């Protein structure tokens, strides 16, 4: 299949249509407005549903309506718009309503700016909505990966009856690069066992998120968390690049991951043993896999376009196996391969010094004996 030159936002919209998305409900916000524009131009002519909702509150709740009928639906927004949807995410996880949310991060906090950033990692991964719940969160680093993960988002949403977020940033949304749109590769599950379509020759069904009787909510939450364990077991994905012999492992997600890859290549050329560990599923986070990689490393350097958010998950996964350093910029500040390379050199020197110090200490010890 031929590749075509396509903008990230449009690629996501096009992939969603190919994935069988029947409805798009959204509200414009930079830097992701092209998604809604593409949907508005293409969905009606396919006989599918497009609505510019009155707010992000409305658009995500329309997704809920579509989801309760087992229909593939999506919305997209950016930082402050996603903030308005958090209540609905919590309700969707509780009532087990599928749906796809595309979050194209911009600079924050507040209205911030429209430059790329990754400061909504906490927003996507650590709540905002109330109660115990998790979105499944996928993190693309290239336009091609955005296409593939959009397909996967629709499949996972139906497979697990849980909202799935594609977490991109303004850089990916606005960049153009070649991508291929293959056939939707998944076989989706039968929704007729649970979807609402009128109680025709069956008992009535309900899809609600209020459970008042004593113990009911806890039992439900426990069952949903068993589902999350299954998601972690079966769906965790990551990219491990030259980590086998690496003394210094970089961790990064999304577009920062691809920039870090260039920095690894530069460091390798300079003779430094550096690798990259890039989570593709942020939830489920590849915790065990990162822990194993860290066992053989001397140091981890976490790189993000924020003040250190995935850092918490990295530290938790590494769990003391080696020191974890952080290097980031935020609110529209970008990291270049050269900036990363400089940081790598600085830390690598520390590693060497530490090694020398260790040897020195060992020699002194020997002399004492």
């Amino acid at each position, binding site marked *: 299949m031929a590749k075509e030159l396509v903008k990230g936002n449009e690629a996501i919209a096009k992939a969603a249509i190919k994935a069988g998305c029947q409805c798009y409900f959204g509200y414009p916000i930079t830097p992701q407005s092209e998604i809604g524009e593409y949907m508005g131009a293409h969905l009606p002519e396919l006989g599918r549903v497009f609505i510019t909702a009155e707010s992000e*509150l409305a658009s995500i709740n*329309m997704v*809920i*309506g579509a989801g309760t009928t087992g229909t593939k639906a999506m919305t997209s927004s950016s930082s402050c718009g996603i903030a308005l949807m958090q209540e609905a995410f919590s*309700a969707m996880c509780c009532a087990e309503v599928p749906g796809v949310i595309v979050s194209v991060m911009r600079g924050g906090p507040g209205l911030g700016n429209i430059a790329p950033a990754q400061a909504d990692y906490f927003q996507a991964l650590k709540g905002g909505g109330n109660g115990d719940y998790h979105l499944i969160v996928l993190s693309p680093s290239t336009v091609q990966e955005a296409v593939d993960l959009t397909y996967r988002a629709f499949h996972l949403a139906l497979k697990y009856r849980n909202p799935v977020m594609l977490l991109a940033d303004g850089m990916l949304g606005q960049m153009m690069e070649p991508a291929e749109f293959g056939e939707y590769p998944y076989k989706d599950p039968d929704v007729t066992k649970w979807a609402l379509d*009128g109680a025709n020759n069956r008992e*009535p*069904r*309900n899809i*609600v998120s209020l459970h008042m009787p004593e113990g009911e909510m806890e039992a439900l939450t426990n069952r949903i968390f068993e589902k999350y364990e299954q998601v972690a077991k079966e769906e965790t994905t990551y990219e491990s690049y030259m980590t086998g012999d690496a003394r210094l492992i970089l961790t990064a997600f999304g577009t920062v991951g691809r920039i870090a890859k260039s920095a690894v290549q530069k460091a390798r050329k300079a003779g430094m043993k550096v690798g990259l560990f890039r989570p593709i599923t942020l939830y489920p986070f590849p915790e065990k896999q990162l822990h194993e990689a860290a066992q053989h490393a001397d140091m981890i350097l976490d790189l993000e376009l924020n003040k250190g958010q995935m850092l918490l998950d990295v530290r938790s996964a590494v769990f003391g196996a080696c020191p974890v350093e952080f290097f980031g910029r935020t609110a529209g500040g970008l990291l270049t391969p050269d900036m990363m390379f400089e940081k790598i050199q600085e830390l690598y020197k520390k590693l060497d010094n530490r090694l020398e110090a260790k040897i020195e200490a060992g020699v002194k010890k020997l002399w004492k004996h």
Partner: protein
Amino acid sequence: METLVYKRPESLLKDGHFTFCPGCGHGVVLRIIAELIDEYNLQKDTIAISSVGCSIFLEKFFNLDVAGASHGRSPCVATGIKRCKPDKFVFTYQGDGDAATIGFNETIHTACRGEHITTIMINNTNFGMTGGQASATTLVGQVTTTTPHGRKAELTGYPLHAAEIVAKCDGTAYSARVAITSTKCIRQAKEAIRKAFETQIKGLGFGFVEVLATCPTNWHMTPVEAVKQIENVTETVHPLGVFKDVTAKEQE
């Protein structure tokens, strides 16, 4: 020969029991809705959307598919469902706190889009489930737990007239305010809800019925006093009437 004059609608669960306070208006309206769904034989094709407040437990009463919505968002959930399943009958059941206060933006935009859904809004002029706080439709002078000396217009403004505002939206096919204070009123309320249902069935646009309902517990009145309160006071502020009916011209 015996004639059956009263039976439980099929659209109500056989073992479902209303959990409302004595004298509350909700049960009357839920029964009207169930009777109409039976009459139009829509039970197998209906999806009801509950909301937040005393209107929440639809799945405990209706023998129908029910989707829950967050506070104020049931018109959005209904929109999503109806657009995916245009041949289904979709209605929301909300209170004044839900449809006229936190969710009025959604109510208005759903009306403007002319969604083919029906909204039944129970207006008891307060937040009933949380213990009787003032809502957007609370009357000036009305005593609530948040206006213990009566709602003062200079502090909190004036009551919102939902049915009249919804009627102004081009996508609205039918909008009315009814009461359920007497047998006659209940019959008129049923006819209004029938009209609102028919506008959906005929694909004419958005149907909206606001029902003035008693809340004796939070009004600190007996059920009889609460009925009198609606007749003598509430209706002077929120007048009964049909504010829009796109089929009215055809009938002339």
